[in-house]
């Protein structure tokens, strides 16, 4: 089955916008993208006239809790924080994702077709993350997985010390304590790896299996990044300190104070998953919340992805966050990239999604107009060439 979408203004993200472009979709993949002159409509293709419309890649949200918690289900579906121990690298988002959770429908309605869903920030090390598509109808979580695991969640700052120190009266009760627990866990993983090495020659020396430490060994090997929740500038710097101490691949999640240390982060070309910004400043560590941060960090050289952190900002407004970041100084091109290709790169799925290029999945959104116009609506949302939402 071949389909050709003809006539729209196409924003491939990986290249300049194309007026009156053509997208050819074959077997759920993009077969070709370009101007009408570059891309002839293949013989036998079904032609869909999308003149006057604007086509972008399906949006990618690098940090959300879709399917894990939030919405109206309350405690029955509150599965984001395994708040029984501050170090839980052994828990896995995949074991909690509920494909029928209404947040997936909201994601589709907002044009979001791929997202990384993650445990919360109640624990210093919170568990494994996963990247999924949002076309959940009639599917299991295994059907929608794009990358698993895609990262290990860690957290610094208020949440972890409030939950353990203040509520449960146990460690960590300070920022020092949270950093110490993460550091100790990573050293423990190194020791575990050393023992595994000893056991290669002498099986009697093999340590008992520890599924949590196994995951942290993967982090030490850079098979998956440590994704560290940090709002305040000092917490962000602690996150970088820890990551560099162990030579980890890492991303900074939230990065609310980022503008204060933009040079520090820019020098490192830090991967920043920025947000949620379309909400209120609910705690002291979010006092610097502002849409201008996105443009400042991008200009400094960071790899900025704008996130919803759903449910903290309803995921159907991810594009609104990009538009408001543009309103506050981020160039339009960067703002569109920050909800498509940059997050796809940061979460390790840019070979499949994030831009409209031949060979990638046919995940795209037909907008009624430019998405930074308030009256523009995501009229049709496609995942792997299948229509998954209509306005």
């Amino acid at each position: 089955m071949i389909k050709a979408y003809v006539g729209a203004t196409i924003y491939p993200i990986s290249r300049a916008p194309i007026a009156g472009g053509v997208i050819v979709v074959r077997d759920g993949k993009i077969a070709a993208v370009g101007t009408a002159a570059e891309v002839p409509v293949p013989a036998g293709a079904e032609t869909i006239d999308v003149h006057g419309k604007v086509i972008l890649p399906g949006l990618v949200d690098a940090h959300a809790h879709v399917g894990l918690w939030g919405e109206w289900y309350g405690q029955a579906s509150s599965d984001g924080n395994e708040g029984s121990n501050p170090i839980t690298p052994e828990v896995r988002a995949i074991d909690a994702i509920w494909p029928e959770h209404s947040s997936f429908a909201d994601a589709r309605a907002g044009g979001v077709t791929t997202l990384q869903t993650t445990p919360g920030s109640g624990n210093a090390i919170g568990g494994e993350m996963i990247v999924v598509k949002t076309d959940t109808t009639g599917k299991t979580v295994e059907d929608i997985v794009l990358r698993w695991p895609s990262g290990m969640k860690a957290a610094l700052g208020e949440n972890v010390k409030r939950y353990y120190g203040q509520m449960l009266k146990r460690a960590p009760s300070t920022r020092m304590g949270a950093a110490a627990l993460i550091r100790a866990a990573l050293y423990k993983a190194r020791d575990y790896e050393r023992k595994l090495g000893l056991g290669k020659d002498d099986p009697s020396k093999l340590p008992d299996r520890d599924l949590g430490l196994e995951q942290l060994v993967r982090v030490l090997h850079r098979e998956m990044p440590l994704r560290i929740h940090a709002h305040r500038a000092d917490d962000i710097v602690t996150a970088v300190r820890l990551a560099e101490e162990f030579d980890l691949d890492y991303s900074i999640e939230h990065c609310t104070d980022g503008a204060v240390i933009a040079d520090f982060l820019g020098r490192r070309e830090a991967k920043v998953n920025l947000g949620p910004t379309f909400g209120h400043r609910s705690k002291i560590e979010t006092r610097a919340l502002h849409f201008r941060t996105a443009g400042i960090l991008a200009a400094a050289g960071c790899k900025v992805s704008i996130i919803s952190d759903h449910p903290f900002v309803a995921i159907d407004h991810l594009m609104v966050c990009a538009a408001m970041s543009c309103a506050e100084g981020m160039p339009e091109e960067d703002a569109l990239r920050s909800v498509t290709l940059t997050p796809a790169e940061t979460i390790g799925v840019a070979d499949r999604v994030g831009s409209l290029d031949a060979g990638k999945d046919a995940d795209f959104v037909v907008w009624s107009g430019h998405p930074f116009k308030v009256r523009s609506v995501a009229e049709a949302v496609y995942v792997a060439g299948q229509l998954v939402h209509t306005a």
Partner: protein
Amino acid sequence: MLAIKGGTILTAAKDLPARIEAGMILVDAGKIVAVGGPEMTVPAGAKVIDATGCVVTPGLIDAHSHIGIYEDGVGWEGEDANEATDPNTAEVRALDGINPGDSAYAEAREGGVTTVQVAPGSANIIGGEILVMKCQGTVVDDMVIRRPSGLKAALGENPKRVYGAQHKLPGTRMGSAAVMRAALTKARDYIRKQEAAADKPDKTVDRDLRLEMVCRVLRREIPLRVHAHRADDILTAIRIAEEFDIEISLEHATEGHKIAALIAAKGIPCAVGPSLYQRSKLETKDRTVKTAGVLANAGVKVALICDHPIVPQQWLRIAAGVCIREGMSETDALLACTRNPAEMCGVADRVGSLAPGMDADIVVWDGDPFEYLTKTKCVLIDGEVAHCAPEAVSAAASAAGCCCGGHSGRCC
């Protein structure tokens, strides 16, 4: 005298054209003295704000906010909206909980919001006294333009969650309605006893500030403003209002679209929102950005609300924009954040439209106020510049003159 000249004026006024191209607004002593078209000339000696290419609207009004009473970026210490120690706290006053130093006011002004109705939260069945204030000032008493402007009430999940968890009344929706009825009944008795004691000093009734506040609702001096998301909660609010012949407004009305015709027939105004927020609880499961438009199209008087901090105050214009996208007319959307909330809050004689005699609360936008990329160039409250775009400030520094023509002393 100040003249705002050359902009497209959206008046939101009853007795003026809705839209005036290349218009002029004259401001003197904090009030609007004239609104007209290009035929008007700048009076001698008047300072000029050049609004050419801009859109000029009344300062926006949010009829349901917790700004100042739920402080921004502070956490627990700044949360003073819910005196959740008794399901009826009619005697508490938003006035006593508002911090005008909350940084959210500056952002509200930047977003073109100049007047807000600030209410206690929804933990209690009767939550306390509501007021209407301007978004500029340091002494809350001076910022208030109407107090009390209503008595806060709540049905649905919040009160039954708060008190049910403590095994106290109300633990159910039935209990919530019973608490509300009991409060109104007791206040009625209080009125009866006061009347009976009118000429008999020996029978003077002890003062009860809680009951006195509820009595003002019974006397229809102020409305009961009832937090109700679900359709059944809305209907309970209407049922009780009719039982006691009191005036109400519906706050949130998240499922209002399901019973729009009924609400319209009853003539009850709705403060709709925060529609941009997540479906955080069962009673907001069916939230849709379409609700405001459905209600307005059915003939209901609608105000759009942020419910700050649930949606930050400065995004009221974005809430309106998204409602337009989802089927609300542009006229209704503008009215829903200007004249309608002014009328619903009882302050339409002062704010909510651009007409002679009104407070000079005026916003100059650099484009369509409801577009994401639009910004306020200049915001006036009582004729004084309350916000000025940074670009205008730097322009002033380069001697190009700022948008307010040096009128304010605040930005240039």
